[in-house]
């Protein structure tokens, strides 16, 4: 097990820079997710770490060892591919045993290691089968077994769940997380699915256009997004533009003159009056009421009209038109709290503490 450090890595394909000066540190035994939309460079970064790509510039370290110039077959990484990449001409056993055979382990030891990993992943009954006889979920487990059986210094997973059904996906991701913790293996996980990233990671690196915009725990990334992109990409969010009209140091409140009216936010360091800002708040932070409610020093109340309503089972998601702009709100347990219907007049309260101010 090692720590992985990427320093100022650039990857240029022809005229396109897929990575533009990326630095990242993954600690020993930690699971870090590279999260971002397609084309953001997350898979490229993973392939640079695996050695399949040699970066145009920058260094890659495993612990203190510089592995930038090393070929993939010299790095001892485990890599799980999006399409599993199982070898169709080999049985499950031979697929898993391949890396051990290459390392010239004795046959008895190979059998024992394969059996152990197969048990861990509950595929011990499939060892004699060929990949085409397996379901997608089973193939995924075999791919994972093949990657971890060599006891890799770092486990790399490239969108490993994207070819699975929604239900199986949730099961497998829980298992991957459990396995990673049990084996205390350093892991880097690539996904475009923000929910997957929140569930599975110790830390998330949100990537956009070849750079990392923010690295942090799931909580930090969700509640304290550092950029508009991160706020928008992770979870649902309302973004309102405005300028700071007044800062009240004693109350710790700033008033923002926004496109939907005055909004009170928690005063943060470095804010200046007159400054143009973006206000970011999550739908679930907004309180919705059918009867009039009062604003206060620490919250703002708007009156609006329900535009559209989506019923998602456990919650109701609605767009409410306020001052010509649509704000997204969520009502959990809608049966208890009151159903919303289009054209209905509602009142919404936005607590100042839950509004994040981004420049």
């Amino acid at each position, binding site marked *: 097990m090692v720590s992985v450090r990427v320093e100022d890595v650039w990857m240029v394909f022809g005229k396109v820079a897929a990575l533009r000066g990326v630095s990242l540190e993954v600690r020993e035994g930690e699971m870090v997710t590279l999260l971002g939309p397609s084309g953001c460079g997350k898979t490229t970064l993973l392939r640079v770490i695996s050695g399949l*790509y*040699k970066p145009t510039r920058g260094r890659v370290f495993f612990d203190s060892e510089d592995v930038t110039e090393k*070929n993939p077959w010299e790095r001892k990484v485990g*890599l799980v591919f999006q399409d599993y990449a199982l070898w169709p001409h080999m049985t499950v056993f031979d697929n898993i045993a391949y890396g051990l055979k290459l390392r010239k382990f004795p046959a008895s030891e190979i059998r024992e290691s394969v059996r152990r990993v197969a048990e861990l992943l509950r595929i011990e009954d499939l060892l004699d089968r060929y990949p085409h006889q397996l379901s997608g979920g089973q193939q995924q487990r075999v791919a994972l077994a093949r990657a971890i059986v060599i006891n890799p210094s770092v486990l790399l997973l490239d969108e490993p769940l994207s070819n699975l059904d929604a239900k199986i996906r949730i099961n497998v991701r829980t298992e991957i997380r459990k396995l990673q913790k049990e084996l205390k293996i350093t892991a880097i996980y690539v996904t475009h699915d923000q929910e997957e990233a929140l569930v599975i990671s110790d830390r998330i690196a949100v990537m956009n256009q070849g750079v990392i915009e923010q690295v942090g725990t799931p909580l930090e990334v969700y509640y304290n997004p550092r950029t508009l992109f991160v706020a928008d990409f992770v979870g649902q969010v309302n973004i309102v533009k405005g300028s700071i009209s007044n800062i009240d140091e004693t109350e710790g409140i700033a008033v923002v003159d926004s496109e939907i009216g005055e909004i009170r936010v928690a005063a943060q360091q470095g804010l200046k009056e007159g400054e143009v800002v973006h206000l970011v708040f999550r739908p679930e932070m907004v309180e919705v009421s059918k009867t009039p409610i009062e604003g206060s020093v620490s919250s703002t109340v708007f009156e609006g009209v329900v535009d559209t309503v989506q019923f998602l089972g456990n919650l109701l998601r609605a767009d409410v038109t306020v001052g010509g702009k649509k704000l997204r709100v969520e009502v959990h347990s809608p049966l208890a709290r009151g159903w919303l219907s289009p054209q209905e007049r509602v009142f919404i309260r936005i607590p100042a503490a839950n509004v994040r101010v981004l420049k």
Partner: protein
Amino acid sequence: MPKTPSFTSTVRILLLIYVLLFIVFPLVYFVLVILSPRSLSEVTSFVYSDVFQRSLRNSIYVSALTTLLTTLLGLPYAYFLHRYRIPGKRIILPLTFMPTMIPPFVGALSIIFLLGRFGTLNLILMDLKLIERPINFIYGLHGVILVQVLTLFPWVAVNVYNSLLKLDRTLEEAAESLGASPLKRFLTVTLPSITPGLMTGVFMVASFSFTDYATPIVLGQYELLAPQAFVNIQQAIDESRVRAGAYMVFFMLVIVLLLFFASKRYISLREYASLRLPRPVEEMPLRGIGRILSTLYVYVLLFLGLLPHTFIFVISLSKAWSFTPLPATYSLENFQRMLSNSTPFVNTALYSLVGTAVCFAVGMFGAYTIVRTSHPLNEFIDAALSMMFVVPGIVVGTSYLFAFRSDVPFFGMIGSTWLIMPLMLATRRISYTLRYAYATYLVIRKSMEEAAYVLGERPLGTFLRIVVPNAIYGILAGTIFSFIEIVNELTASLFVYKPGWETITIQMFVEITAGRLPVAAAYAVFLFLTSILLAIAAMRLAARSK
């Protein structure tokens, strides 16, 4: 940059050497000989000579008419066969393309017995007192056209059929739903989508017909460019005759290349690979008169196309056959005579095995290198190898004859050994293996190799243990098709061979020109049966690779 497997650099260098030695050098050498100042003045006076002008006129006439007729026959054939439920379709498809594997001049040999002055048809007609004197069906340019149309229409049919397989039925249904009449639909939707196959077939027929010398010679027609060139160069009576022959070959090359570049944007050489694997598709049931007519059309044409090849069997078994519609006595004498001379068999086996080994090696390592790595030289190598599919046999033969002549340093040495035969054969027929290998490697996902790399396997080991086991059936299928084409090659070998190097096809040609037609037929039967067996094996392998 992305890493590329390291052993491929070595493969690329070897491939480049091969391409330079056996494709670029002979062709460039030949063109340089023609374009030397002394030749150039000769060429101009030659162009105005009566014999050249007449031959050129005849050649253009023959190939234009052959192309037109094969298209008119082959296009509906493919369309009916693809679209309608023709009984026995599964067997019709292979029966259509099997005859294309053996050289077309075999058809001429058969036609002489069928339609000759005292051939089967004339004798029957005279016996029935329908005619008094024999009709001249075949001696003349029309005979060449007849034989070529009968033996070449499957090329158009199979290529068009192949295109039709890729045509999305919903496109046609969309046109129908918008109210297009069947004719309008065919012209605006169907025809444009089958243009690549059609143009490939048309080009292959036009190019072959224009440069074919064996068929005219068997039928005694010498007033065409190709037989003129062949006779001038092969008989080598004096240097000026050889040069005149070479100019004709050069002109043929220029015209074929012009033809190729004119039709290039429609032709897809890459798609030619799958050509030999027609598979049946969903068809429409047809009722009434339309069904009878389309079935009849397919069956009649198939019968005519197979007639020469079937009749070869009758000829090969005949003994002292003359003035009767069918042989009076049958015997195996012709086969005994054929077997008494082992040289052609030994040579064919030797050359085809060596040649096929070259094809296999290039297909296995070369195709992988070209598909999997990015290097500026890849395109050049690929283009050169693919080009050999376009260059006519007579051009390859003449170029090799000139470029590997004993007075050329180094190359003369290669040319003086029999090795030149398999090397030439492999180079000329390698495109079959290559296309199959490309197609096979392209479907092997790159991640399967990368999975091996990260587990600690090096590129060569990955190639041998991961890639090859998954690609081998496809490559073998392509290699067998190359093998069949090598065994059946005549037009270039006939220029390059020296006494003692006769192959089966060369010996067959020699027997025909010596007037021993039934013995030649025995050779043809042997070739035909061998090729069919090999083709079945190849199709099995190709099916398995999927």
